[in-house]
């Protein structure tokens, strides 16, 4: 059950952010995917980001959590 929950969070989580240097927004999914395709180190960073997200999900009480405004 916990695994399914983790998987669901993984798939549901949107991720704003813009590491672009150009006029184009590369999109978060596009950058994270390239980190994974780029090798084990990048993939580990992506896992860490999601782990952080999961931890913060359990740390914050449901009532306290706020919807991100972006």
């Amino acid at each position, binding site marked *: 059950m916990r695994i399914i929950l983790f998987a669901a969070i993984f798939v549901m989580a949107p991720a704003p952010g813009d590491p672009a240097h150009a*006029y184009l927004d590369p999109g978060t*999914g*596009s950058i*994270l995917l*390239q980190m994974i395709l780029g090798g084990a180190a990048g993939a580990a960073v992506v896992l860490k*980001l999601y782990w952080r997200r999961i931890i913060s999900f359990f740390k914050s009480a449901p009532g306290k959590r706020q919807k991100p405004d972006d």
Partner: protein
Amino acid sequence: MIEADPGSFRDVAGTVFHVDGRILRTVGKAAAEDFDFLHDCGLLDELVAAGRMVDAWKVDADIRQDAHYVLEHPRLPFISYPYEWCFTALKSAALLHLDVHLSALDKGMTLSDASAYNVQFIGSRPIFIDALSFRRYRQGEFWLGYRQFCRQFLNPLLLRSLFAIPHNDWFRGSLEGIPTEELRRMLSPRHFFSGNILTHVVLQAALGPSDGGGLEISRQDIGNRTFPLSALRRMLRKLRTWISGLKPGDRSGTQWREYETFKSYSDAETGAKKAFVAEFCEAVRPAMLWDMGCNTGEFSKAALDSGAGRAVGWDMDQNALDIAFTAADQSGIAFTPLFGNAANPSPAQGWNQAERMGWFERGPAEAVLALAFVHHLAITHNAPLNGIIGLLISIAPTGVIEFAPKSDPQIQRMLQLRDDIFNDYAMENFSEALSRRARIIKSGTLEPSGRKLIWFDAREASS
């Protein structure tokens, strides 16, 4: 007259201007360094010589004070948009884009975006048009245009390949292309067996924005993480291999062969029609001809063989367009078959409703062919005959129109399940309406169908 191109505003690197029919582009200081590199490393010459990119040269022109310098490009014969391309055309544009990117990496450059609008067609040959998309490659940088490449090339191709749905209508309504998240929602578990689909659609969509909560990532999170050059090259090559193998999901082998048989099948009427078109083109020698309802392009080919300079064809039959495009590509004729519906032509749209041109802004052509076209508009779309004549004359002042009598088997099929409310639909009415607005240069009747061919000229009527 100096006029900024209404579609050229996104990239601060430079702006395209139309100056007395010339295409000029201002280049800002930072972009100038990249363009100089593109020129000096030999990539520009290499791509131009291979016919993969439009040429660009520096000129003396005072357009904007903040411009470091000004480039001139050759004028393209016709501008079309990805929502007007058939599957085969979009695929060849996608492959060109990947090839240009791989060539750039070999010379230490990369592409700053992956817009399908940066590709145009000369005949059926795709050509890259944005000299300012090239930037010097920074070691380990991410492919910033990847999401855009998926939206504007990969996803539209997958839509037709996986679901047999042509991309055109969706793309026309969504000018930035088909979002990966939306395509992902259409997938079923059977698609998950493809590693490519899992990576570029499922995983990319999962990692990107969706309707749920939020994952905060910042530049710090990415830190000094890099995307190795070898991984970027591998990604581009793998996409190239995958895309070059994609086929429309609704093209069965038999159907494709039937079309080809149909194409090569030349009965007496087809021969007579081609001869009429040839005679017209030999006399008029139009530099640009529009072929309304071009089908597989055989009459455009007849026109090009007899004096027409270039032809742009419009049709709604995706399979016919794919065949027309493939045939034009193989024979190298100056024919661009495009997807379009005369009853609902591409509008002017995008930013300021001017970013992408409508049909008629891209005309007028010098001549128009409307073979087996009028009855589709008149019967299927209930369009008035006078309106159809007005449409054709606004496309080009002279041309050849075919008119099928109501007894024609094709019209009888159209009327099989509906009332015949088309009392005005008759050869006499059509001829009379046409001769009010144009001179009839020549007409002839095809036997045994009784269809009529009319060569009209509206210029002589008004002079």
